[in-house]
């Protein structure tokens, strides 16, 4: 493989990482029966808090930790309203997405004194693996959070398939009443996954704002949280399929850049992944129906 293709793969991985981290959060929520569409807002909040903490402390890792904690707290709102108070998680998520957009715009002006884009020499970005001594193709230019995201896919698969708590979480998601009847604390599992998704979205935001680039700009999540939701849908709550779905979007983004040269309207390239997703959903549904009919 020549250098050009390495850089292509590397670009795909960079584009995939924040979406994948957020999607992992969506996946574990889905497993336990919480439909979480607040990923977009949490991703934006994570990006903002990562930049604020990194800017204050001069440490990117403090920024990552800060984003994880801050987004955990933010997810606490969803957890409290949707799990404790049994509000509809879709509705609460719509509220959280608005709240994140408003709060980041508001606080940005309060903290940095202006809107738009913020960057500064004091703002520490995450180092690349190459800078940390792991100078290999594809992974070398990535931040350490990228291999972490990939390992988390493996961890999620192991948790869901091999651990008692993972199996129980699935039980909670598939049949809450039955799970409660055998003594499982349904609310506890749901609080757990919602908060964990907050941490994952915090990492996703930190990767976006301190890994992919080193800055914050208003609305910089730019729909990545929604793509994560779509990926969760496509995955059928299987972590490896989730990885594939996220890579599909990463590749679509990278290939989209290349299609532009070929005279296709850029909007067609941008819409393509969503059209493909719809078609894939139709095919999956048809295949699923056939399986059931045969069974």
């Amino acid at each position, binding site marked *: 493989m020549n250098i050009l293709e390495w850089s292509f793969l590397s670009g795909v991985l960079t584009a995939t990482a*924040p979406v994948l981290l957020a999607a992992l959060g969506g996946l574990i929520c889905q497993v336990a029966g919480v439909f979480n569409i607040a990923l977009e807002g949490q991703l934006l909040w994570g990006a903002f808090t990562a930049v604020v903490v990194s800017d204050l402390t001069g440490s990117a890792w403090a920024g990552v930790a800060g984003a994880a904690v801050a987004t955990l707290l933010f997810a606490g709102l969803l957890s409290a309203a949707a799990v404790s108070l049994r509000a509809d998680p879709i509705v609460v998520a719509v509220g959280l997405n*608005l709240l994140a957009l408003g709060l980041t715009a508001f606080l940005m002006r309060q903290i940095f004194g202006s809107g738009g884009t913020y960057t500064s020499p004091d703002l520490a970005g995450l180092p690349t693996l190459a800078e940390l001594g792991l100078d290999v193709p594809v992974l070398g230019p990535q931040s350490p959070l990228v291999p972490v995201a990939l390992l988390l896919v493996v961890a999620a698969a192991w948790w869901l398939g091999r651990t008692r708590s993972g199996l129980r979480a699935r039980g909670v998601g598939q049949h809450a009443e039955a799970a409660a009847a055998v003594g499982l604390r349904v609310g506890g599992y749901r609080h757990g996954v919602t908060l964990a998704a907050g941490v994952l979205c915090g990492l996703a935001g930190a990767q976006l704002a301190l890994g992919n680039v080193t800055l914050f700009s208003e609305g910089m999540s730019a729909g990545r949280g929604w793509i994560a939701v779509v990926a969760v849908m496509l995955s059928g709550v299987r972590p490896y399929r989730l990885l594939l779905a996220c890579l599909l979007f990463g590749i679509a983004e990278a290939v989209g850049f290349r299609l*532009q040269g070929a005279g296709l309207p850029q909007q067609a390239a941008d819409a393509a992944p969503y059209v493909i997703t719809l078609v894939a959903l139709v095919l999956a549904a048809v295949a699923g129906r056939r399986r059931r009919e045969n069974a």
Partner: protein
Amino acid sequence: MRITPALAGTAALFALAACGGGGEAGTTPASENPPAKSIILITPNPVGTNSFLQLGVKGAEAAAKDLGASFKLYESKDPTSIAQNVDAAVRAKPTVIVGISFSFDDVFSTVPKQHPGQQFLQVDSCAKDQAPNLACVSFKEHEAAYLAGVEAGLLTASGQIGVVAALDTPFIHRWIDPFFAGARSVKPEVTGTPLYVGGNNPFSDPARAKSQAQTLTGRGVDVIAAAASGGNQGVFEAVAASGGKAFGVDVNQCAQSPGNVIDNILKHVDVAEAAAIKEIVAGRTGGVKVYGLAEGGVGVTALAEDATASGCTVGDNPEVLAKVRQVRDDIVAGKTTVADPLQG
């Protein structure tokens, strides 16, 4: 191209993420006794950190100062409140009412006709149905892009240059085609590649802008013009990592990424607007006033007196500075013409 947060917001597709512009007319109340001369500037959006609108305010203030006129700023919260602000301005009866951007196209094709005694000025666009008491200011952005292209052609080592633009629209091609043409004028073998940010938030997606810039640098491109509004910083990061260089757009962005920005494709909104206001006050009303290099309405930082101290890397290359100034003189003198992509 102008940096318009409104566009950035509106382009955001997941409407949840795009819910930015909430409100309405933030009008500054007009005074009761207007002095002999007065100027009211209406913006389509809050000025805030919008550098384009900031220049607009600066130009109107400068003109007011020179003319001894009073100056009032009516900020619209979003384009839907423009009509109300224009009404308020008309009631205040200033010497000139200035509106910035295409957002005024509709209002300015009706209101000036209803108030023939009132002078209007529209900056950076022109209402289709232009009344005799409406003057318009437009820019030859392509001339500035051409000059930047000359610099890029002289400074590229690989012979490959690129542009990362927000969207693929004919207007945005004013920053692309002339940039490549300028480069080829000094180095005919230069190849130019444009890539577009697109996606869900094309005017404010630095991560996508960066990955496109990386796609370009991965192919050996070493000079990239950043016409991606809020995404420009991502382009600067990409060239910094690859050892390439970038161009900023609209305002001096060299300080945003020290050592990585060659120069900027500038639109001197303030200069053009102040000049146009003075012309109107002097009685030369109506018509379209086009500001290019000759009028100082567009340019590059390299043309400034203090180019070597501007923080832009072009300042380290005296021969490039000299060449750019010579090409500028050629364009002004009509010896070189820059093709306008919009006329193509």
